[in-house]
């Protein structure tokens, strides 16, 4: 009886002692999961990253304004809407751009980042709704002053559950105009 009590107390002590462990080791594992918003290739020269969150697109400039849908932005969730917007992260070679506009197209084109004559005039846009199960696009409208010179815009694509940004994912989209 006494030994049993002592054993119980000893076990209890060990359990209490384990509470002194400040934290357990972080662990990582891979598991399938639903991806609600995926980037997809659309125009030649466009490609999503391996995760379908990042993407890049290359288009050729012209002296006249040309608009091209370059990447799909698909909401694969059949029941929940998402909201997306773009913001300029960095750029180079803009002096060659007589006109540039990068925007989101969910049936209606909404400009997100704009520039003209080599300077950016709008660095970010407002949220555009991506309806459940919808196929949306990222488009580029551009014209250049001299063909063959490279301009690059690096954009942050933010996809949120709700415009109040309670939860969101930010990934990278690179647009090259040559």
């Amino acid at each position, binding site marked *: 009886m006494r030994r049993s009590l002592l054993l119980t*107390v000893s076990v209890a002590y060990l359990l209490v002692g384990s509470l002194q462990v400040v*934290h*357990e*080791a*972080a662990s990582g594992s*891979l598991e399938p999961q639903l991806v609600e918003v995926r980037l997809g290739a659309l125009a030649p020269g466009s490609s999503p990253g*391996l*995760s379908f969150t990042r993407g890049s697109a290359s288009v050729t400039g012209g002296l006249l304004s040309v608009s091209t849908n370059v990447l799909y932005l698909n909401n694969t969730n059949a029941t929940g809407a998402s909201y997306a917007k773009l913001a300029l992260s960095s750029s180079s070679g803009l002096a060659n751009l007589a006109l540039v506009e990068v925007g989101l197209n969910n049936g209606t084109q909404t400009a997100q980042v704009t520039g003209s004559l080599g300077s950016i005039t709008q660095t970010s846009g407002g949220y555009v709704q991506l309806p459940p199960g919808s196929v949306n696009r990222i488009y580029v409208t551009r014209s250049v002053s001299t063909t063959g010179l490279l301009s690059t815009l690096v954009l942050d694509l933010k996809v949120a559950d709700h415009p109040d940004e309670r939860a*969101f994912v930010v990934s990278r989209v690179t647009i090259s105009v040559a």
Partner: protein
Amino acid sequence: MTGRGKLLALSGALLLLGVATWGAVEAALQWSSSSAVVQTSVAPPVAHFEKGDGASNSRYVKQVTLSDNRTRFMVVAKPRLGAETTVKDVVRLVSDRPTDRLVTLKAAPITNGHVEAFTWTVKNGPTTVATVDSLQPSPAAAFALPAGATYKIDLKVTLAEGAGSSEAAASFSLVLEVP
């Protein structure tokens, strides 16, 4: 002393030694048992965690578990590969004392090479109070918790793209503690 006498004397000595040892062991165990009881019954937590609104975000949070005394929590997150995932108000830190107290949050360091950033941000409304960077060798943050305050904690994870992992994401278990 005859051989039988020596044997009896030796047996007696061993018996005494055994009794003495048992008594010492009992005393030690009884002492440690008292110590264990004291540890569990004294010093109520300075603060506790509660689940925030972000804990129910099924897109990016798989599970949030609080310890029995609510001084630790574990989050299994579902961040996106190749992107920075932010979930606001995953848990809340609530003061249980009538006076301001210094508290410390600690986390396990993350060494997974695909994790580019992993932070817990403690916020008082829009103001950042402290940040625990889990990529540091000893992730921790100490700050004053005012009496009656409730701070929200956001989670931010940036994962690199991994070859062959286009439709998979890493899940993480992490525990914080308020001493």
